[in-house]
């Protein structure tokens, strides 16, 4: 089969998006929804069909030139290798399930064409990132996901806070994009090309200081999209969007785009140990920060948002420790169980009567349908990392990579990771207990749950629980399928003694169990929410929003005000207005001459006559 058919994978969702945006409201609702789902399903099936193309060196396909000038020629090209194939499969698969869920979730929404159009467009943009052969196509997808994220977060824009959340997300990720663009241009200046594989091949020719700088720039770009420190303030507020959006964008795909970028450019960034250390540090600090914040959140989706931030921090730590396979493994399992958790949370919110506050829910295990409870629980145990779930293996793999790193500093990061794992278990089970245990706290009538919102949960639950099989370490009898599939791209080979591995696995189990017990002890009975200074501090995300406001927003608005009022109004407008006023004043003064009185005109007459006479006399004298 022709390799250009690979282009159908990203283009089919794009075509569906365009059709939906143009004609969606005119077609019957069912047709639009089918179009939306079928776009993504087709991409998924095609990925499976073309799976063989990713073997070995992978396949390249080009669809014509995008930019052509002297010295530069950039095509629309995609590169289908093992890394891309794995990611594409995950993206399209999860997207399919979420689209089905969204059909059920948004069944009462009147503006469905805009929603599904944006959702499909988002899938296209994400696939552009994943399948990009050169950094410019990747950047196109990068910006595209940002745009769709903005549009989908602020989907119910009629409420100002939703629109503001979308704007905030867009602006903060934009800051990261600036750094990414700088890195892009620098790479182009250094290597004369933007093709990823060429850059990776030529990476060793770049001087070490430049590599460190490039790594830091790329890290900051990734931080924007993946909501890591310091560009993380947008993710919690992004929960204002519909739940399918949160599930797709802020759990499975967009926030992992940063990780994917780093994995893609791993040969480049792995050359500088300083850069790797920076990546790990960012990941570790974000993981800890987010886990502490999640402990104090009152809204169910905000807990999950901070949890996502924390888990993406784990992925960053994996990349920093040199294990691309570990990062991708955690990325995939996290996609499964986090999407599952978000979707189940959507069901929970629906059942509790559109109630978001944790402390107003309760007893949904008894009240609601049982499958929602079991699905949520499945996702929760994966997140907490209880043994033999997918989350357990992937998280354990990351901790092992950190522990077994040559640099002793990484032991510190391992410690942070372990602490975060404990906190993860705590807040996860806190969530479970508050939502499902006990008696219902508020007696509101529950809503009927559409079937489409329930049954996509099951495949994800199975994938999450069984996800460990993707990269089962030999310790447990597996063959590490993912690492072998990724081959050379898998990063550092992780060597550790069996004893160490068992120790770490056991420690992880102990931490997860400890976290569960703590949560049960604290939240199993109906504890009221704590309202002390610590919890308020954590609730506000360590005051990050206030800090950004103080450091960035206020100086900026002050500068803008100065430029507008101080410069524009005071200087430019004042000059022009002053000029106009002076002209008018002169005119007014001149106007005083036309008194309408004969005497004035006679006097003027005589003056003129005198002047002429004077002229004659002067001529006479000369």
């Amino acid at each position: 089969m022709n390799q250009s058919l690979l282009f159908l994978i990203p283009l089919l969702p794009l075509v569906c998006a365009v059709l939906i945006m143009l004609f969606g409201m005119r077609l019957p609702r069912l047709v639009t929804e089918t179009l939306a789902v079928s776009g993504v399903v087709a991409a998924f099936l095609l990925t499976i069909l073309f799976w063989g193309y990713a073997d070995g060196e992978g396949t390249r396909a080009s669809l014509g030139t995008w930019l052509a000038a002297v010295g530069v020629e950039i095509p629309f090209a995609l590169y289908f290798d093992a890394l891309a194939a794995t990611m594409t499969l995950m993206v399209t698969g999860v997207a399919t399930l979420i689209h089905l869920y969204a059909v059920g979730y948004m069944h009462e929404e009147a503006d469905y064409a805009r929603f599904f159009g944006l959702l499909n467009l988002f899938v296209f943009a994400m696939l552009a990132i994943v399948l990009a052969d050169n950094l410019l196509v990747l950047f196109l997808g990068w910006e595209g996901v940002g745009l769709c994220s903005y549009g989908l977060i602020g989907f119910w824009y009629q409420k100002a806070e939703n629109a503001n959340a979308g704007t905030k997300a867009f602006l903060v990720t934009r800051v990261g994009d600036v750094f990414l663009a700088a890195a892009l241009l620098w790479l182009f200046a250094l290597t004369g090309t933007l093709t990823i594989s060429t850059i990776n091949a030529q990476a060793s020719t770049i001087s070490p200081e430049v590599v460190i700088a490039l790594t830091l720039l790329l890290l900051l770009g990734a931080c924007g999209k993946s909501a890591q420190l310091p560009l993380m303030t947008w993710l919690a507020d992004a929960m204002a969007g519909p739940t399918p959006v949160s599930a797709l964008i802020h759990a499975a795909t967009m926030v992992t785009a940063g990780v994917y970028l780093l994995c893609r450019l791993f040969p480049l960034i792995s050359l500088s140990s300083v850069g790797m250390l920076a990546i790990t540090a960012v990941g570790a600090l974000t993981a800890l920060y987010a886990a502490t914040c999640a402990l104090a959140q009152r809204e169910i989706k905000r807990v999950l948002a901070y949890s996502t931030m924390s888990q993406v921090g784990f992925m960053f730590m994996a990349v920093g420790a040199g294990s691309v396979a570990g990062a991708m493994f955690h990325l995939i399992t996290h996609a499964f169980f986090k999407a599952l958790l978000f979707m189940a949370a959507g069901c929970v919110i629906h059942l509790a009567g559109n109630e978001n506050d944790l402390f107003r829910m309760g007893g949904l295990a008894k009240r609601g349908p049982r499958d929602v409870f079991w699905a949520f629980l499945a996702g929760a145990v994966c997140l907490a990392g209880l043994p033999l779930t997918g989350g357990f293996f992937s998280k354990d793999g990351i901790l092992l990579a950190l522990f077994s790193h040559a640099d002793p500093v990484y032991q510190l990061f391992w410690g942070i990771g372990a602490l975060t794992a404990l906190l993860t278990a705590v807040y996860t089970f806190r969530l479970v207990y508050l939502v499902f245990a006990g008696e219902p706290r508020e007696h509101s009538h529950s809503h009927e749950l559409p079937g489409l919102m329930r049954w996509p949960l099951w495949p994800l639950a199975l994938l999450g629980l069984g996800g460990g099989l993707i990269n089962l370490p030999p310790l447990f009898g597996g063959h590490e399928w993912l690492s072998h599939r990724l081959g050379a791209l898998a990063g550092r080979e992780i060597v550790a003694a069996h004893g160490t591995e068992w120790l770490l696995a056991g420690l992880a189990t102990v931490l997860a169990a400890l976290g569960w017990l703590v949560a049960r002890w604290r939240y199993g009975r109906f504890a009221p929410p704590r309202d002390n200074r610590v919890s308020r501090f954590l609730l506000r995300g360590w005051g990050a929003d206030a800090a950004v406001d103080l450091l960035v927003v206020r100086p900026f608005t002050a500068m803008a005000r100065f430029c507008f009022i101080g410069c524009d109004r005071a200087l430019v407008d004042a000059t022009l207005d002053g000029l106009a006023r002076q002209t008018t004043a002169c005119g007014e003064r001149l106007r005083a001459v036309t008194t309408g009185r004969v005497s004035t005109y006679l006097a003027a007459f005589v003056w003129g006559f005198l002047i002429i006479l004077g002229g004659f006399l002067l001529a006479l004298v000369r």
Partner: protein
Amino acid sequence: MIVPFAHILLFAAALFVMGLGCVLARRNLIMILIGVEIMLNAAAVALVGGSAYWRQVDGQVFVVFLMAMTSAEVAISLAMVVYLRRRKGTLVADDFDGMRG
């Protein structure tokens, strides 16, 4: 000539200036008209002086025309004064400022 021509011209000039001053400085329409009369007479003096200096009668003939024109002008001016007085009730020149911009 009984006096130098220059003296006659000086005299005429002095009369003219006084007439001009009357026109410019006074606000009453009648006084403005009288100032015009004085200026016209000053011109007549200059003309007659010239006629005497150059020993030709044309200057005097011109003075006659001057007088005829003055009569006509005064007739219409006074008719207008009457009309304006009827319209506005005042003869102060400053009050007629309809052309005021």
